């Protein structure tokens, strides 16, 4: 019985029981962003062992580098033959044990007189509470587990050291942080850890009795900071190196937008920051978005009541114990965490919102629930224990203890004891039998062995490819980040992610594979020898293209001699690129500059030619050799669509006019209103509304013939416009590039109406030349502002009967020199979906109009004439080509009386990544309106021939206008599809609710309400499904001067992932040396004496590093990734610090040792 009195034994045993339940089937578990690290630690270690990782197309290792020692140790243990599931089980046991033991010790340290049984209850609170359930266990990320375990340990050591005035605890903290170095692989956790320790130091500093105590606390805290910094310098230096690298800057510019981040933060705050949910420890989104039974358990009112009762007890404990320092310590921590966890939600959320917008570090906490949840739970445990212990004392009964124990261990513990905590609401993770368990098929081991046999440093391209995530249809499947790079010994382009330059390739490679006649030049530029076709994936769930279509395309290419089937392992097939040339490092003799953003397909433009961006071309003094000029931007101006905007949206209602005495108050009110809008988009919309109001006011001024007030309103309009200009620039610069065109189009349509309104004003003053000319100057000024913002083109658009304004596309080209250029469009599918038979089309080039006859060249390019363009910016515009209707048009009627009726239309010629417009006229004759859905071949099947629709639009009957109406919408919902069907569904008119007022609840029951159903009838005509024109016309120089330089022979030895030795033979001229690893300025090329070539690499072939080598003859060069050298120095500092600290601990504990 004495054994059971040992709290650590109880914690260890409980952890052992949990782990035994979770791993009873002998399988590893995995999901989410962590992938499957427990599959093979050696492969995992390979990706973080140096500062450069060979994953995808390579890349700089950032904060993940902190996981390197853990993977090294685990890889060594795995080599001993210990099964990986046992290692994962041991990892979980350690996390549970450390978390539990130090929760116990921390509470005991601060509340010495509380009985052990209450303290052990605290351990279960820390393990099983619903916040940890969501943030740690169900999330299933390794660094989250470790942070969860380390947090109570860190706080215990920190407080213990302060209380005992002993630096030994500081050294122990440093040693344990080295042991748990994996947790540092999240910057948010590092920041949280230091915020917690700073809070603790500050709290105890305020309680210090005298200067001596205060001085000790300051010394103690800074010892923590300095020693932690030195022992962790090895990875901190790498983080700084990454933060100053080109990759980070490019990523920040391309993918990170503070507006997008703030918007996500606001959304999460409003859903997860509800205090009623937070006080019940509930993640609202998590518990309301699944129909799994154990999720529903948390939605029972009784369970919610028990959770709220726990919070009530905690608040009562705070109230009763507010004169005790430990209670105040945790109460303040609890309150601060709660304030932060709710994000910018009410009340007073504006403080966090302001901090978020104005501090880069705060951007790490976009999901405050996920991050601050750790601190909240840490604060709650001691408060809860304190509360129930004093209440039990007060009541002189143990009732509260037993109710709490039942709630924590049985109710909250249920998903843990059953292992259901490792299930999610989507397949295959929603299967309670398999949970997160994964069995990787043996085929992968066989394929890996085969790949190892193939000599050389080649890469794979895995298809189908779309996005970051993947779902494998294995016996015990996996859903999470793509695993190809984690389970094969060869790196591959197998997923798309927001890594600069890599994303440019990965997001386009499948499109180029289908659309380019030759794919091997692209493969060679990537150093890719094989295409892996994976048929073991759930392609419907991931919106991927059917793998069968990839195989069909490869079979076609095999007949042309481009590829051959090399090996098949179960559902994995490797196709060999028959033109493969090892090309990790190679020399090129020609260079071609591409203005604008080079496309993946350009890699097959010219053989032996390095593609350079315009800036790279300028940096090497070769700006004139332009082979392609892509437009810098595209604007769209289209005929104003009355149905897109309600008139009051553009010209809002005005109740008080400038001639009113209250008008100045209205202007003040508008200013105050503006101050409270923090969201940039909402600010922009608000300014647009004010602009519309000012114009609306002019109507009355014209009626009253009050010119003074008219111009006063227009002056106010331009004052607001100057604010709008600044906001628009900030907003436009901060949104994702794929949203920019929609924003420009929306603003252009609104200002089109503003310009029209000003023109009407001008026309009404025809006879008054002075006013008319002044109005003219206002119109011109507005046009100048709109052109500067690129909402409108610089040149006035030509509009005539023969060249009407339908949908005008305006392309802006930056031309390097006065010269003749050919205008071309590359799209072999263009003829399928657009009518280009018209012999002549109008082109507006800057301010002049031309007619040209489109022609198809032998390379399948659409030639739109040769044009002389002047150096600098040029605008070329034309109306978009007339799209073909992709369905067989048919007018039809639909009727439904007893049940739903539907009519489907197959859509022909779908091109996978395009956008489509759907429009039709409809007349609701009786009852309900139709629902319109798209069912693709890659839509998720529900069985029995049913599928989940990709797009779902419902038209409701109008209560005012009963005439025939037009309806249209755009959709990108056909992604990955190769066939689709547009389906109209009509339901009977449900009149149960209208017939029986107030509506009885049983009206929701179809079986009972069916007797009230009435017939619906609709008529549909002019149904159109058309493709949007997205291809980019480019300019090509008519006279291209290409130099024919002779390239030398290159051989190389790969010393490590960060160092290559390159042998150059017979170099007769300058040449371009290319390293086919992801572009990073950390790479440098040196001669044997260590002298660098150039200032750093230039971006070549969209993603690679290139150097101009201006040396003749035979010689040796060294390519190295410089941060690796820094790592070697910083690692030595960290190791020495760690050794010194270990020696200090031994020295400090020697007395106790000898006493024993």
């Amino acid at each position, binding site marked *: 019985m004495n054994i059971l009195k040992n709290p650590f034994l109880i914690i260890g045993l409980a952890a052992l029981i949990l782990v035994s339940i979770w791993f009873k089937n002998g399988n590893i578990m995995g999901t989410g962003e962590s992938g499957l690290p427990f599959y093979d630690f050696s492969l995992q270690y390979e990706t973080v062992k140096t500062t450069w990782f060979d994953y995808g197309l390579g890349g700089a290792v950032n904060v993940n580098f902190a996981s390197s020692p853990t993977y090294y140790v685990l890889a060594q243990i795995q080599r001993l033959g210990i099964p990986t599931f046992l290692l994962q089980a041991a990892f979980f046991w350690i996390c549970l044990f450390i978390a539990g033991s130090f929760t116990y010790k921390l509470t005991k340290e601060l509340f010495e007189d509380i009985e052990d049984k209450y303290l052990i209850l605290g351990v279960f609170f820390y393990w099983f509470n619903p916040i940890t359930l969501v943030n740690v266990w169900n999330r299933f990320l390794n660094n989250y587990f470790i942070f969860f375990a380390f947090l109570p340990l860190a706080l215990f050591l920190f407080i213990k050291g302060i209380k005992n005035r002993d630096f030994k605890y500081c050294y122990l903290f440093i040693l344990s942080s080295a042991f748990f170095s994996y947790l540092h692989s999240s910057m948010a956790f590092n920041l949280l850890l230091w915020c917690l320790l700073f809070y603790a130091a500050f709290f105890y500093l305020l309680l210090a009795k005298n200067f001596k105590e205060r001085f000790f606390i300051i010394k103690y805290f800074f010892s923590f900071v300095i020693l932690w910094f030195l022992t962790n310098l090895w990875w901190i230096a790498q983080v700084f190196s990454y933060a100053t690298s080109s990759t980070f800057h490019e990523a920040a510019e391309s993918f990170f937008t503070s507006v997008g981040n703030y918007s996500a933060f606001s959304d999460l705050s409003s859903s997860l920051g509800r205090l009623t949910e937070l006080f019940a420890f509930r993640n609202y989104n998590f518990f309301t978005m699944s129909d799994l039974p154990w999720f529903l358990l948390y939605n029972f009112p009784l369970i919610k009541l028990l959770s709220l009762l726990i919070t009530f007890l905690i608040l009562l404990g*705070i109230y009763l114990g507010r*004169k005790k320092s430990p209670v*105040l310590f945790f109460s303040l921590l609890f309150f601060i965490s709660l304030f932060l966890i709710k994000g910018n939600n*009410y*009340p*007073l959320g504006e403080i966090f919102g302001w901090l978020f917008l104005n501090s880069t570090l705060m951007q790490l906490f976009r999901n405050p629930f996920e991050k601050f949840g750790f601190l909240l739970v840490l604060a709650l445990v001691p408060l809860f224990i304190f509360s129930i212990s004093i209440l039990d004392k007060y009541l002189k009964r143990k009732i509260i203890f037993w109710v709490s124990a039942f709630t924590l261990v049985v109710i909250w513990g249920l998903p843990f004891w059953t292992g259901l905590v490792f299930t999610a609401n989507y397949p295959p993770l929603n299967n309670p039998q398999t949970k997160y368990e994964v069995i990787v098929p043996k085929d992968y081991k066989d394929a890996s062995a085969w790949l190892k046999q193939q000599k050389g440093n080649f890469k794979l391209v895995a298809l189908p490819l779309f996005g970051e995530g993947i779902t494998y249809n294995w016996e015990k499947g996996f859903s999470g980040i793509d695993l190809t790079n984690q389970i094969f010994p060869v790196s591959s382009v197998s997923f798309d992610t927001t890594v600069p330059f890599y994303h440019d390739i990965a997001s386009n490679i499948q499109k180029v594979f289908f659309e380019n006649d030759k794919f091997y030049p692209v493969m060679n530029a990537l150093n890719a020898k094989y295409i892996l076709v994976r048929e073991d994936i759930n392609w419907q769930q991931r919106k991927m293209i059917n793998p069968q279509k990839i195989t069909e395309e490869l079979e076609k290419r095999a007949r042309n001699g481009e590829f051959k089937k090399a090996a098949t392992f179960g559902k994995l097939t490797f196709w060999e690129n028959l033109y493969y040339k090892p090309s990790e490092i190679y020399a090129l003799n020609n260079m071609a500059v591409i203005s604008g953003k080079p496309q993946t397909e350009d890699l097959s433009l010219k053989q032996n030619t390095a593609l350079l961006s315009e800036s790279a071309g300028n940096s090497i003094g070769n700006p004139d050799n332009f082979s392609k000029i892509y437009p810098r931007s595209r604007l769209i101006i289209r005929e104003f669509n009355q149905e897109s905007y309600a008139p009051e949206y553009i010209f809002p209602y005005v109740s008080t006019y400038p001639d009113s005495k209250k008008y100045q108050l209205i202007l003040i009110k508008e200013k105050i209103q503006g101050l409270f809008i923090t969201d940039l988009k909402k600010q922009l919309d608000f300014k647009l509304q004010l602009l519309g109001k000012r114009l609306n006011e002019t109507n009355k001024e014209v009626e009253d013939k009050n010119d003074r007030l008219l111009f006063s309103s227009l002056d106010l309009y331009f004052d607001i416009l100057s604010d709008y200009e600044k906001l628009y620039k900030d907003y436009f610069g901060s949104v994702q590039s794929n949203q920019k065109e929609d924003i420009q189009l929306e603003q252009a349509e609104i200002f089109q109406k503003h310009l029209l309104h000003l023109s009407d004003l001008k026309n009404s003053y025809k006879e008054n030349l002075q006013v008319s000319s002044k109005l003219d100057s206002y119109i011109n000024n507005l046009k100048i502002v709109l052109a500067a913002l690129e909402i409108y083109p610089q040149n006035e658009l030509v509009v005539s009967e023969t060249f009407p304004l339908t949908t005008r596309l305006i392309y802006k080209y930056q031309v390097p020199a006065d010269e003749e250029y050919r205008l071309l469009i590359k799209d072999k599918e263009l003829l399928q979906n657009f009518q280009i038979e018209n012999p002549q089309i109008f082109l507006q080039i800057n301010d002049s109009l031309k007619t040209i006859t489109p022609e198809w060249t032998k390379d399948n390019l659409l030639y739109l004439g040769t044009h002389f363009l002047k150096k600098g910016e040029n605008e070329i515009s034309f109306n978009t080509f007339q799209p073909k209707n992709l369905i067989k048009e048919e007018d039809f009627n639909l009727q439904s009386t007893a049940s739903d009726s539907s009519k489907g239309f197959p859509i022909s010629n779908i091109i996978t990544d395009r956008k489509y417009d759907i429009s039709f006229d409809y007349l609701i004759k009786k009852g309900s309106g139709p629902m319109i859905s798209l069912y693709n071949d890659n839509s998720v099947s529900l069985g029995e021939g049913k599928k989940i629709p990709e797009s779902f639009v419902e038209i409701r009957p109008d209560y005012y206008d009963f005439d025939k109406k037009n309806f249209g919408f755009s959709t990108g919902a056909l992604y990955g599809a190769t066939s689709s069907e547009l389906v109209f569904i009509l339901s009977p008119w449900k009149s149960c609710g209208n017939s029986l007022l107030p509506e009885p609840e049983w009206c929701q029951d179809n079986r009972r309400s069916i007797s009230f159903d009435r017939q619906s009838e609709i008529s549909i005509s002019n149904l159109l499904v058309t493709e949007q024109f997205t291809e980019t016309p480019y300019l090509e120089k008519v006279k291209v001067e290409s130099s024919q330089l002779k390239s030398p022979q290159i051989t190389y030895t790969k010393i490590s992932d960060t160092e290559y030795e390159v042998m150059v033979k017979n170099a007769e001229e300058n040449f371009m040396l290319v390293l086919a690893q992801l572009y990073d300025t950390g790479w440098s090329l040196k001669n044997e004496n260590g002298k660098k070539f150039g200032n750093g690499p230039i971006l070549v072939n969209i993603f690679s590093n290139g150097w101009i080598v201006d040396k003749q003859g035979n010689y040796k060069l060294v390519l190295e990734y410089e941060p690796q050298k820094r790592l070697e120095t910083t690692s030595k500092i960290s190791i020495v610090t760690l050794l010194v600290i270990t020696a200090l601990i031994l020295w400090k504990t020697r007395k106790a040792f000898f006493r024993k």
Partner: protein
Amino acid sequence: MKRIFSKTFLLFLFGVLLLSVLFIIYTTGLPVQSIFYWLTFIYWLVLIIVLKLSSRFSLLISLILFAISAFAYIITIANPAEEIMRIAFIGLIIGLPQAFIEYLKDYNSKSSK
């Protein structure tokens, strides 16, 4: 007693002013919720300072409001429950730091003795 009455009267006037401001804001379309919580916070703070109330007041009111809100939440009156909980939270925002300040004062006076 006279002093307390005069202060309470001042607070009453302040409350009337606060409600008038809220009314103006509400009718002019300004973000009423945000301003309401800020004004409640200020009002509560003024109440504490003027009437020299201890942390006990704020924490007790918070606890009562919490219980009312929790009850409303359980019987699925979600929106009023959230509003009440937010006011309870404002009480914590004021009450907890106040409790800490009181503790520090008490602690320092004991230490100096």
